């Protein structure tokens, strides 16, 4: 209903063309790294930490911290967009690609069509399996050359930069492969089920 609507005397701060073209609709450029979490930051000691793939797999797998680090590392440089409107360019991460981990388990991609990421503290988020394959998702443990800070999801978080950042579950401890879609934490609380920033899929019905 914005047709013809003008906020009286609002001029705004336009970004230059190259920046504007890189910002998804409704987003602004952020240079800091805001923190958003629904509860206290969990602190699981690394010796008790593990990462699992469970659900619709022939045999579930579990890796310790050291075993996870032993997989080949990748260093994606990506833009990230939070549903609260900020976008941050050129973030340097280090992690293991989710595809690498999924190659360690046997599953039927016609059955296991969705994944539920689960985290310390009880957080969950749901994604189509296709969105974590093909070099589009990582379990990231390093940010800008440093171990990932606890308030940003350390020791490890999911990194799925092509979707709003709530899909990049902090404090991630595993993935559950499922045959039907199942809304996660924010997806059950009015946020969009898929969350494509370029389609501005912020809330249910967007």
């Amino acid at each position, binding site marked *: 209903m914005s047709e013809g609507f003008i906020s009286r005397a609002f001029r705004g701060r336009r970004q230059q063309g190259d920046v504007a073209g890189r910002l998804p609709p*409704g987003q602004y450029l*952020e240079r*800091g790294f805001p923190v958003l979490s629904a509860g*206290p930051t969990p602190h699981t000691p690394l010796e008790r930490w593990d990462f699992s793939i469970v659900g619709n797999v022939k045999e579930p797998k579990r890796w310790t911290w050291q075993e996870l680090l032993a997989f080949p590392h990748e260093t994606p440089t990506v833009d990230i967009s939070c549903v609260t409107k900020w976008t941050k360019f050129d973030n340097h991460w280090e992690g293991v690609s989710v595809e690498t981990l999924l190659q360690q388990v046997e599953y039927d991609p016609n059955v296991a069509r969705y994944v539920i990421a689960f985290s310390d503290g*009880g957080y969950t988020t749901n994604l189509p399996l296709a969105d974590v394959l093909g070099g589009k998702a990582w379990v990231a443990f390093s940010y800008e050359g440093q171990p990932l800070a606890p308030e940003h999801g350390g020791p490890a978080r999911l990194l799925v930069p092509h979707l709003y950042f709530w899909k990049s579950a902090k404090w991630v401890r595993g993935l559950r492969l499922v045959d039907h879609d199942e809304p996660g934490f924010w997806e059950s*609380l*009015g946020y969009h089920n898929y969350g494509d920033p370029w389609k501005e899929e912020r809330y249910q*019905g967007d």
Partner: protein
Amino acid sequence: MERRTLPGRLTWQRGEVVATEQETARAQSITLALPTWMGHRAGQHVDVRLTAEDGYQAERSYSIASPPEEQPRVTLTVERLDDGEVSPYLTEELRVGDKLELRGPIGGYFVWEASMGGPLLLVAGGSGIVPLMAMLRHRAAVGSTVATRLLYSSRSYADIIYRDELERLDEADQMLEVVHTLTRVQPPGWTDYHRRIDTDMLREVAWPSDQHPLMYICGPTPFVETAAASLVTLGHEPARIKTERFGPTGEA
């Protein structure tokens, strides 16, 4: 973690500014008449969208300060960020009679309703008071007697948002206790706390963990991290601690 599904679609709606109030040097309350408002719960927020003449738009999120009982009037309290794009407009340019576009309510987790009971612990840092004020106003509007404590950290006496109203609520209600801490400057004779929030302060103010309070913390990230970690240290269940954080966003 609890769930509650919000059905339907959040469409943009237009409200008219019917009142503004300067709360502090940097915080302004804006009351809107929203004829198509579908109601909200205390603690939720809205997205505000500004549109320039050439069609350029900017969106930001702001907490609702008013209780559901005041609808179709909705009050936002906005803190001006000096380098902000939207908050200077809302706090300095917008005036009574202007129209504002918004959609909401948004966020179904950081909410409190009287039916959820208590005891209730609210911990606010700076303008983090805003969604907690909606809870206190809701509590007062429905005549709730849920035992409630607010610990509110501000830089100085002049920076306390809703200062007079909090004092009135505190005096009128034996089941409500408002405790301030002023971190930078204190007026002469100040008897509340005068340091940054810490575990000892929360041990003194918060309910003992065996009373299983519902806890809501809102403020800048370092404040929320400290308060939430302290409450966990004091034995409170992490699942009963709900947090909402906002800038300044300098740290990486």
